[in-house]
């Protein structure tokens, strides 16, 4: 191992452009064993691109990488792995058709006389998960897990493989408080054992609490780099965004007497047992519970993707049958998924087409004209500040945060009567988060009933009027937001009792 204090990775002058558009220019980065090095920056700033270059998933156009004191030359994924660089990319990368156990052991299956040892695979995988305090069935198929569970599995896999550098690209973006806390603890533990950790997150408080060193990127350039203790929230925001960002809770005064969305005795036989929630028009209600509880399963049922065993659904006083997407949409109910890659966007279609995908279908447009489409989509792009390098690329090429903005714009631009928002700011930067919060405020002010299924306590405090606490698939308590503190909220989310 490298002696403490000397860099295990030195990157110098890294530049990368995609077809003429520059994603990184002249970036340098040092990783020191035992340190958490946070990368911060707005969506599209180039964080993921930088770590993809470090992990050999992409090649830089220019620059040198020195690993463990020797020049690394052109990197490949295999080489990075050999050199001890483990990466959890931003996009969940599991083999969805294999079990959790096999995914954890992928590329490193234990064998005896070249035969795969199935029992040992299960045991090692279970061990890897247990070490991180994760409760996931190792025999489940990876494709059946929630995004949060997939993240945890992936972290467990990389940690198990070990190495001297661990790169975590937004590991906590869609995790609940409990899971995030597990990740934090893990990062600290690894640091103590001399691993250099790269940590990417848009949560400033999280970064300030965890990181030793911070590098801020803007438009592909390093704009600030230094020790975490030398900076504070305001400075960080300024260097990332170039201005101050304030997001305060406005007082939304609207008539909240009419019921906008009513879920009654909902049960899906697995995760949800007899859930009843009522959201009035102009109200934002958050469903809160430990990660993996009912809130992450509501999307399937409300959107019509899957039929529950029992229950009623009413939108603005009208009964909506389950399992029928068209009926659900006609009623004005909009469900925004937390899984934008699988259920949200079509990566091959352009940004404009994705933006107008639902809207144009609801308007029953028969013809498709690119110029008009662009004109219709332009206001949405502006409102949601979707940033693209080229005019109208396939949406799959956008940075994660920008994809999320496209997803929200796609649905919230369709005049909802009621909506379900699942982790609406998943992976977006703080400026965009503030924008999105303002947009949700505007929705509520305009009389939309908003059901929020977020795993982020700050977001719940910022947006919700009321919190419904679910445990084991049932609503067990309900609080007005001014009756509960952030800490109590986190305690509830962690599954603890409440005074």
């Amino acid at each position: 191992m490298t002696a403490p204090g000397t860099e295990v990775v030195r990157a110098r002058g890294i530049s990368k452009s995609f077809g003429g558009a520059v994603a990184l220019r002249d970036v340098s980065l040092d990783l020191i064993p035992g340190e958490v090095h946070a990368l911060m920056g707005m969506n599209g700033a180039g964080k993921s691109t930088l770590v993809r270059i470090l992990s050999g998933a992409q090649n830089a156009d220019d620059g040198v990488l020195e690993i463990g004191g020797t020049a690394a030359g052109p990197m490949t994924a295999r080489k990075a792995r050999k050199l001890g660089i483990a990466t959890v990319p931003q996009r969940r990368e599991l083999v969805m058709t294999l079990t959790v156990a096999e995914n954890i052991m992928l590329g490193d299956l234990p064998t005896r006389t070249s035969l795969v040892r199935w029992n040992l695979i299960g045991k090692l995988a279970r061990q890897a998960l247990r070490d991180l305090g994760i409760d996931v069935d190792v025999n489940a198929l990876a494709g059946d897990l929630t995004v949060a569970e997939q993240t945890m599995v992936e972290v467990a896999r990389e940690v198990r493989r070990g190495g001297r550098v661990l790169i975590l690209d937004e590991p906590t973006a869609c995790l609940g408080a409990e899971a995030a806390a597990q990740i934090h603890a893990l990062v600290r533990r690894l640091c103590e054992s001399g691993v250099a950790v790269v940590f990417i997150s848009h949560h400033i408080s999280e970064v300030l609490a965890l990181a030793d060193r911070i590098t801020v990127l803007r438009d592909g350039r390093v704009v600030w780099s230094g020790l975490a203790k030398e900076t504070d929230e305001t400075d960080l925001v300024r260097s990332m965004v170039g201005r101050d960002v304030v997001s305060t809770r406005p007082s939304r005064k609207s008539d909240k007497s009419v019921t906008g969305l009513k879920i009654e005795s909902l049960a899906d036989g697995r995760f949800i047992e007899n859930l009843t929630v009522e959201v009035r028009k102009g109200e934002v209600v958050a469903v809160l519970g430990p990660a993996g509880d009912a809130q992450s399963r509501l999307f399937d049922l409300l959107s019509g993707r899957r039929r529950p065993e029992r229950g009623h659904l009413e939108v603005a006083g009208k009964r909506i049958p389950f399992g029928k997407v068209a009926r659900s949409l006609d009623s004005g109910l909009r469900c925004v998924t937390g899984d934008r890659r699988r259920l949200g966007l079509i990566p091959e279609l352009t940004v404009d087409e994705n933006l107008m995908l639902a809207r144009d279908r609801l308007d029953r447009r028969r013809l498709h004209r690119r110029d008009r489409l662009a004109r219709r989509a332009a206001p949405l792009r502006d409102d949601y500040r979707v940033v693209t390098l080229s005019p109208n690329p396939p949406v799959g090429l956008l940075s994660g945060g920008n994809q999320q903005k496209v997803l929200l714009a796609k649905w919230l631009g369709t005049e909802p009567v009621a909506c379900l928002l699942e982790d609406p700011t998943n992976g977006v930067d703080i400026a965009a988060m503030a924008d999105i919060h303002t947009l949700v405020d505007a929705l509520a002010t305009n009389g939309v009933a908003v059901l929020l299924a977020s795993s982020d306590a700050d977001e719940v405090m910022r947006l919700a009027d009321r919190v419904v606490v679910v445990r084991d698939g049932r609503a067990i308590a309900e609080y007005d937001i001014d009756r509960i503190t952030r800490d109590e909220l986190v305690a509830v989310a962690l599954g603890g009792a409440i005074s």
Partner: protein
Amino acid sequence: MTTTLTAPVATRRRVLPRGFAHGGLLLVLVAIVVFAGLRTDSFLSTNNLLNVLRQVSVVAVIAAGLTLLMTAGGMDFSMGGNVAVTTAVAAQMFAHGQSIWLTIVAAILLATVIGLVNGVVVTFTGVAPFVATLATATLLDGVALLVINGLSVSIDDQLSPLGIGKTFGLPHLLIVAIVVLAVIAFVMRYTTFGRDAFAIGGNEDVARLSGINVSRDKLLLYGLAGALSGLAGIMLLARLGASSPGTGGLQLQLTAVAAVVIGGTSLAGGKGTVLGTVLGVLLLGVVANVLNLLQINSYYQQISVGAVLLIAAIANLLQRRRH
């Protein structure tokens, strides 16, 4: 194995003029045309070129339907079988003295129904399209033989205006094919239905959740593929003047599939252009023609077709990758 949407490719493609995506294919096609033009005078004669175009018309119509269907992530391996059944039924109807229009309408209706049956199976049972339509292809080939009872059924010259007629020097078959290709290209580019096909092929779940009636669209797409098979069947019948064992069927199907995939339409759905398909169809037609004109030994003909297909596929990809 899974091919990833490699980013740089797609970004550049927008910047380049359209059609450039098929540069490799175009290059191979032009190379063959130049080579043939130099080696034999007859190749570039108007007559011969019109022949080639008429010869590929039937395949073009099938390939057009297949392009749209495959873009939506579907597959119909039974279009050749459908053609066989349609020609057989139409020939028998003519033989039994039915009128031309009744026969044409009935045949295309039948073909549409066959397509819809495929659609129902694929949409409502979830059997993979390739599997379901491979099964119906086998079945339809049998039905076609049964209908003509294993014998040639001639229709005399009842359809010869379509089969050999020309307007302004253009064979009618070619005109039909051009119209079909143009309509499909228009649908794919300028209608919501066409864009829905891309969406469904790109991610069926997202399409459904976005309010696209995926089941209905799929049925329509399979129905359309069926209808176009029917039309192709009538065209083939008009061209041949008879339905005999071996008309249409798997060979025709494979030619159409080859043309479509060479043209860059993805088997996994979400990507496809009529222009690519047209180039694919032309490539296959021109190669067959050139091999005949150059009087190549029949064993080498198959080898040459295979080799050209391979080269075209590789050239098309390498060319795209360079950007």
